[in-house]
């Protein structure tokens, strides 16, 4: 409000200072008109666009009327430019018959613009910021642009085609009394607009405050134009400057808003980046803590498995019965398979999954060393497949059982092959193959598990959502197909 009052006082002072010398003729410079009017056209149409954008968000009647007022002013300024003698072409206008067309185009421009602005403020006083129904803003904008353009066209036709039927506004280069009366009428409308905008600025913010400044400039322009009494006087030139200042006032407001919003956006962006950075650091710290805890848990699991292995070893040492010792030895193999899975997982980067190849190789190497008095040789091959603990443990246990069973009872050195390979559709086959033909090995072709008839193996296969599939080749063996990713 302070800025509004200050600007209004400054414009009033300008009027007071220039009023005594307003009638002094200045140089007749036709080029001055395109400069001022061109600036006004650019500023008014840009401001109109920005007001329509604002209306699209807020959808209030005053905004669409104000946007229409600025659009009207910008378009009528074009008409004024085309009808002003010497503005674009030497000694004559582009359209119409000077000076009547020029004067009427100008009066209709200033008068229409002031009228629409006044109407916008009166509607704002009556309706406040009540929005239009949702979804109507696009139609309303199109309608406003259409009606405004039609009004401008009507005014242009009236000023250009029928200047002779209209009362004169100019007498040589001097205003007629009608012209003066119209201008005072416009001044009165601007006074109303000013009061309404001042009232609204206290409730509805900056836009109305800046509009007050624009209206103050327009009022000063009207008074100076009247005081000048004709074209190219000091008052006339000062009025052009004031009209131009009025036109760019709201544009400056929007530019200021853009700059302020840009600053806020940059500040928000910075604070968001800092917040994201802090959050990321916090999450990384939490993740590191989780990994540390998980490694601690796996460490304890492995240590406890070693304790369990030691307990079984202790028990085995005190057992004289050969069958019982074999059973305890098989139990140690299973415990060791569990330990190996945890060992592989601890070596992995994400503590979630690990490559199956090294796991299977370690397992079969250990089995080869302990089974059949170390006379067993196991060849292992696998695709590049990562497995998690949920798959690795049953897989390792099943493999331990199959290899143990396949080598049990063999008198001579035995060679087995173990493979774990993709078969498509997210499935992989675990195949254990004996080198001897099935009949010589004492197994039915394609079956170890059926002969094995182990509820544990069957249960582990079911746990993996796997199934036994026909074993390829003529040698004894068994193939188990398992999904690599299972439904939770």
């Amino acid at each position, binding site marked *: 409000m302070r800025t509004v009052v200050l600007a209004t006082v400054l414009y009033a002072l300008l009027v007071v200072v220039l009023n005594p010398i307003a009638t002094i003729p200045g140089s007749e410079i036709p080029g001055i008109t395109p400069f001022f009017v061109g600036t006004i056209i650019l500023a008014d149409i840009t401001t109109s666009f920005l007001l329509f954008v604002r209306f699209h968000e807020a959808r209030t009647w005053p905004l669409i009327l104000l946007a229409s007022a600025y659009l009207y002013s910008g378009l009528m300024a074009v008409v004024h430019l085309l009808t002003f003698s010497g503005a674009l072409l030497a000694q004559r206008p582009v359209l119409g018959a000077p000076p009547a067309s020029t004067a009427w185009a100008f009066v209709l421009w200033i008068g229409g613009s002031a009228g629409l602005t006044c109407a916008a403020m009166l509607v704002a006083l009556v309706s406040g910021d009540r929005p239009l129904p949702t979804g109507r803003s696009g139609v309303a904008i199109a309608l406003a642009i259409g009606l405004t353009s039609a009004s401008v066209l009507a005014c242009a036709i009236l000023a250009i085609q029928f200047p002779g039927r209209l009362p004169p506004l100019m007498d040589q280069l001097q205003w007629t009394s009608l012209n003066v009366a119209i201008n005072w009428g416009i001044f009165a409308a601007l006074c109303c607009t000013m009061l309404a905008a001042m009232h609204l600025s206290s409730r509805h913010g900056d836009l109305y405050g800046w509009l007050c400044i624009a209206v103050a400039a327009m009022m000063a322009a009207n008074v100076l134009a009247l005081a000048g009494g004709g074209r190219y006087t000091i008052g006339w030139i000062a009025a052009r400057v004031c009209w131009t200042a009025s036109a760019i006032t709201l544009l400056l407001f929007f530019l200021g808003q853009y700059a302020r919003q840009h600053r806020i956006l940059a500040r928000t962006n910075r604070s968001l980046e800092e917040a994201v950075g802090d959050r990321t650091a916090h999450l990384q710290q939490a993740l590191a803590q989780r990994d*540390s805890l998980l490694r601690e848990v796996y*460490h304890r699991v492995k*240590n406890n498995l070693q304790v369990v292995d030691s307990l079984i070893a202790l028990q085995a040492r005190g057992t004289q019965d050969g069958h019982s010792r074999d059973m305890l030895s098989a139990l140690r193999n299973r415990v060791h398979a569990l330990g190996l899975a945890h060992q592989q997982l601890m070596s992995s980067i994400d503590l979630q999954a690990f490559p199956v190849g090294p796991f299977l190789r370690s397992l079969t190497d250990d089995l080869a060393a302990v089974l059949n008095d170390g006379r067993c040789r196991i060849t292992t091959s696998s695709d590049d497949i990562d497995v998690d603990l949920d798959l690795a443990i049953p897989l390792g246990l099943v493999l331990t059982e199959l290899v143990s069973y396949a080598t049990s009872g063999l008198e001579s050195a035995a060679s087995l092959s173990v493979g774990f390979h993709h078969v498509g559709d997210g499935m992989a086959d675990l195949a254990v193959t004996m080198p001897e033909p099935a009949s010589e090995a004492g197994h039915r072709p394609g079956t170890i598990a059926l002969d094995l008839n182990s509820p544990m193996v069957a249960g582990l296969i079911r746990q993996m959502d796997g199934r036994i599939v026909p074993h390829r080749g003529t040698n004894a063996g068994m193939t188990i197909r398992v999904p690599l990713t299972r439904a939770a």
Partner: protein
Amino acid sequence: MGQLSRDVLVVEDEFLIADTLTQMLTELGLTVCGVADTAEEAISLARQHLPGLVLMDVRLKGTTDGIEAALAIRASIGSAIIFVTGSQEPETIHRMVQDPSFSVLFKPFRFHQLRDAVHRILPP
């Protein structure tokens, strides 16, 4: 440094694991000169018995861990060290291999793995 024996010192704070290690070493024909469950006790026994090999757990009772004890024994007595541990954290592994003469055997281990590791240092 005095003349080292072919005896083995077991440093492990889990009784059952220490017992299993002792049993396995005995099966390999070696003599276990002592079992310690703290770093201080390990250093003391090592100075007393001058073992050729120390099987050392990393996490021990007390504030000093097995790696510090191993470094102290290696520096003062010169015994070979095999870490027998479940620890696989990168920092721990980095500390365990800082002396290239140190070996590592991860738990759970099998007899043949211990045998191979021990025979590399104390050939049969």
